[in-house]
C-alpha cells in the first residue's frame, strides 16, 4: 500500500552534488550526506560499469542519468521522485549538456516538481557564514578557482587546470613505470587505493630535494601493498611522496595549483585581493590528503617572491577550516540553502521548464541574480 504523507509534513528535498568521481546524496536540513557513492552505473546491455562523465552522446548521457537517478531515489532516498523538489549543487563550469540533460531527466523522466540549482563555489561558504572568499575546489577531473565577492561568484576570473584525482592516479602509474617492480597498467581502482592509503603531500623542503637527481634525503618507508590477493606490490617511499607533486610541477606556461590561485587574485579588484588572500577556502576530496593545506601555503608564499605576483601586495594567506569534510562541503551548502525559503523562491518549477525547455544559465548575469543568497546575508549584516 502506498503510504501518503500527511499534508502538514514539511517536504524535505533531495540534495544532489554529482561530481565526476563521487556523488553526494542526502536531504535538506541535514548536516552530512546520507551516502557518497561513485558517479557510475552498471550498463545493462554490456554488463560493465560506466562512469556518467564518460558519455558518448546526448542520448547516451540521458540514459546513463535515467539509470543513475533511479538508483538515487529507489536505492538510497527511498521516495518516489514525482512531485518532489530537488536541489542540485553544480560547478559553475558544469558543461551545458550535462546540466540540461540532468534537468530533462529529472523533469520529464521522473517528474520532480522543481529544481533548485546552486553553484558549488558559492554555496560551500554557507557553512562558514562568510560571503567573500577565494574558493579552491580540487576534485577528480580538475582544480577550479573562483573568487566570491560579497556573495557573488566573480565568474569572469575563474581558473581551471586538469589537476585532481585523475591526474594524480596517472602520475602514480608513471612513477611505477619508472621503477623495476613491473607494475604496469594498474587499474584506476588500484591506483586510487594506493593514493588514498599510501600517499601524502610532502613538505616543500623535501620536495625540492626529491626533484634533484641525487640527494642524501632519507626516503620514507616503503609499503607492502597486496594486490589481486596473492601478489605484493612495493609502493616505495619515492612514489608515496611524489604522487601529489604533479600539483606543483609548473607546465609549459608556468601554471600549477599555486599560480592559479594567485592569477585569480590578479584579476579581481585591487581592494579585494588582500581580503581574498585572508579568506582561502579549500573544498573537494583531494584537499583532504594529509599535508595538502600546509604545502599549499608554502607554495603560495614562495610564489609571492615571483615578479608576476609581487604587485599583488599580499603578505600572508589565511585559511578557513570547514565544519565538515572537504569532499562534501558544497553538498552541505546545498542542504543549508535548500532548507530555507530560498527553495520555494528560487527553484525552477516544472511548469517553467515545460514552457522554456531549459534551465536558466549561470553565466547569464540576469540569471545569476537569482543566486544572491550570500549577498542577502551581507545586506542584512550592513
Amino acid at each position, binding site marked *: *500500500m*502506498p503510504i*501518503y*504523507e*500527511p499534508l502538514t509534513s514539511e517536504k*524535505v528535498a533531495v540534495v544532489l552534488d554529482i561530481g565526476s568521481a563521487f556523488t*553526494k546524496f542526502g536531504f535538506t*536540513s541535514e*548536516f*552530512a550526506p*546520507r*551516502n*557518497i*557513492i561513485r558517479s557510475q552505473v552498471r550498463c545493462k546491455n554490456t554488463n560493465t560499469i560506466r562512469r556518467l562523465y564518460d558519455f558518448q552522446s546526448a542520448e547516451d548521457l540521458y540514459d546513463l542519468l535515467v539509470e543513475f537517478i*533511479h538508483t538515487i531515489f*529507489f*536505492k*538510497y532516498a*527511498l*521516495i*518516489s521522485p*514525482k*512531485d518532489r523538489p530537488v536541489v542540485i549543487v553544480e560547478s559553475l563550469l558544469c558543461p551545458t549538456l550535462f546540466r540540461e540533460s540532468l534537468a530533462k531527466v529529472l523533469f*520529464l*523522466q521522473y517528474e520532480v516538481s522543481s529544481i533548485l540549482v546552486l553553484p558549488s563555489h558559492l554555496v560551500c561558504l*554557507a*557553512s*562558514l*557564514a*562568510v560571503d567573500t572568499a577565494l574558493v579552491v575546489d580540487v576534485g577528480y577531473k580538475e582544480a577550479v578557482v573562483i573568487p566570491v565577492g560579497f556573495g557573488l561568484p566573480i565568474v569572469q576570473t575563474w581558473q581551471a587546470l586538469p589537476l585532481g584525482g585523475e591526474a594524480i592516479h596517472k602520475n602514480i602509474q608513471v612513477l611505477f613505470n619508472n621503477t623495476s617492480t613491473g607494475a604496469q597498467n594498474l587499474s584506476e581502482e588500484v591506483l586510487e*587505493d594506493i593514493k*588514498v*592509503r599510501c600517499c*601524502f603531500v610532502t613538505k616543500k623542503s*623535501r620536495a625540492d630535494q626529491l626533484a634533484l637527481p641525487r640527494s642524501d634525503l632519507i626516503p*620514507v*618507508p616503503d*609499503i607492502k601493498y597486496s594486490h589481486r590477493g596473492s601478489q605484493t606490490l612495493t609502493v616505495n617511499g619515492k612514489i608515496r611522496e611524489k604522487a601529489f607533486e604533479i600539483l606543483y610541477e609548473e607546465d609549459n606556461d608556468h601554471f600549477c595549483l599555486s599560480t592559479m590561485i594567485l592569477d585569480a587574485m590578479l584579476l579581481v579588484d585591487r581592494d579585494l585581493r588582500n581580503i581574498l588572500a*585572508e579568506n582561502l577556502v579549500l573544498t573537494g576530496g583531494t584537499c583532504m590528503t*594529509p*599535508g595538502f*593545506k*600546509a604545502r599549499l*601555503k608554502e607554495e603560495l608564499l614562495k610564489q609571492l617572491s615571483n615578479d608576476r605576483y609581487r604587485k599583488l601586495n599580499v603578505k600572508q*594567506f589565511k585559511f*578557513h577550516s570547514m*565544519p*565538515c*569534510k572537504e569532499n562534501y562541503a558544497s553538498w*552541505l551548502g546545498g542542504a*543549508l*540553502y535548500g532548507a*530555507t*525559503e530560498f527553495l*520555494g*523562491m528560487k527553484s525552477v518549477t516544472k*511548469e517553467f521548464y*515545460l514552457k522554456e525547455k531549459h534551465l536558466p544559465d549561470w553565466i547569464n548575469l540576469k540569471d545569476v541574480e537569482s543566486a544572491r543568497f550570500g549577498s*542577502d546575508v551581507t545586506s*542584512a549584516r550592513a
Partner: protein
Amino acid sequence: MSYITGPEYVRYACTCGLLKSLPNLYFCRHCSQLRCGFCVCPEVDSIFCGKCSENIPSAEAKVKKNKCANCLICPSCQQDLSTRIASKGVVNPDDSKSPAKKTYYLSCYFCGWNSRDVGIPDQTSPTGGWPERENVHSNRLQELLDSYKQIMLSQKQQKENDKKKKFGKFVSYTDRTGITASALRKRIGIPDIPHAMLRKPKLPESSTATTEVEELPDKFFTQEIDLLEVTTIEQRLLQPESQPVTVDKLFPAHKQLSIKKSLRCRHCERNVSKPEYNPNSIKFKIQLFAYYHIPEVRLVKVGDLKRGQPCEIIIKFTNPTQHQTTITILNLDLAEQERYVEEQQMMDISENLEVLSLQFKQPTSLPSLPGSQPSSLLSLPPRQPHLTIKSRKIKQTVNSTVEIPQSVFILPPRDDAAEYDDSNDTHNIEDDSNLVIWRKSNKVCIKLLVNIHEGETIGEEVFCGFTMDHVYTNIIAANFENKQPQKLNHKVRIFLNLGKM
C-alpha cells in the same frame, strides 16, 4: 531458458522504441500496449529491512534516515553484523544460584571485525544501546541553519509586503487619512515598536580564517605503515560525517532499508506491476508481464548464412494466453515507426500545454479516465497526471530481409493439461505446409527465408526483423461492461540476431 543469462537473440520493440527481450517487457491491458522499465513510472511501494524482514512505514523510515534501527552492518566489509554473547561472572556473586551475567558484543562472521577491537563496551541488552556517533559540528551548523531560515523568511515576507503595498494602495485607513501607523501609535500612547516580523534577523557569526594550518606530522617520514590499519575509501565513505582514516575508528553502521517498487503505465495511470506488501513474499498483486500476453518467439535453427542465397530459419511461437490467436507475419517497416516518432515530436509542444492547463484546472482532482472503471482504488493516480515518455526511433538496423509468407497460422490457447497428453495433438487445423512445419498444443514452428543484403562481409552479425500481428483477446473490458471479450490486432516488431556470416 538461455534468454535469462545468454545474449538476447530475440528482441521485441517496446512502444517507446527500445528493444528488450520478452521477459523485460510489460503489457498494459488497458492501453493494449507494450511498456518497459524505461517508459513506465516507478514508485516506492513499501519499505522494509532486508535482514529482519520488518516493514517500515515511510514516515518512520524518514525519521530513521532510511536505516533499520535494529540491524547493524560491519564497518569493515559491509556485511550484516551478528550479536554475540559473552558471559562475565554472575549477576550476584554472593548468591550461588544467581544466573550468569550476560553481556553482548557485535561480530562480523565474514571478516572477523568485532566491536571490542574498537573499544565499544559490551552491552547488557542484545538489541541495543550501541553508541551512536554524533556530528561534532552539529551545534554550530544548527545555529547557522536557524539564522538562515530566519533571514530568508523575513526576506520572503518583505517581498510579499512590497507586493501588497503596490496593489493595496488606499486600502488601509491610515494611508487614506495621511497618518502613518507610527504617528497613530504615538498619538494613542503606544510605544513605537516595529513589528516583530520586520525586525532584522540575528546573523550567524562568521568563521575566522587563520594563518595556522595543519602541518604534516613528522611521523609520515619515519613510521612504517601497516596497510591493514588504514581504511579504504569505501570504508571511509560508509560514514560520511567522520570518514575515519584508521580502522580503530570504525563504528558499526545501521543497515540501509530496501524498497518494493510498483510500476505505473504513464498513459492510463494504472499499475502494470505491484508487489505484495509482505517483505517475505515474492509474489505480485498486479503483474502485467508481457510474457503472459504476447506470443513468445524463439530461434530454433538457422541455416547457412551466405550472401546471394536465401537462408532458411526455423522459429517457434508459443501462445501464453487462454485464448486462441492468429498470427500474421508482416514487413518490419521501420520507416513507419520513424514517422510515428516524428509525429509525436510535432505534437510535443501542444501536448505540454495541455498537461499544464490540466494541472491548473484540476490541481488535486483525478484526471477523467476514459472507458471502464478502474479495477481497484489503489491503482488510481493519487496526484498529477503523468508526463509521457517520448518514443524514440528504433536504433537497430537490419542487414537482411525476411521473405513475407503469404499465409497466416493459428496458435491454440495454452492448456496446461495437454503438456502431459501425447494423444490429442491434432487440433484439426489446416496449415500451409510451406509455412508451418511442426505444431503441438500451443506451440508452432514455422520456416522463414531470409535474404542477406548485398555488400555485407563475412564475419558480420546478421540481423533480420519482422512485424508480428497477433489477435489479442482483452478480457478486461469484458469484465467491466459485461460484454464479450474484445478481440484486437496487436502488432509488435521483432528483431532476430542470426549470428555471424
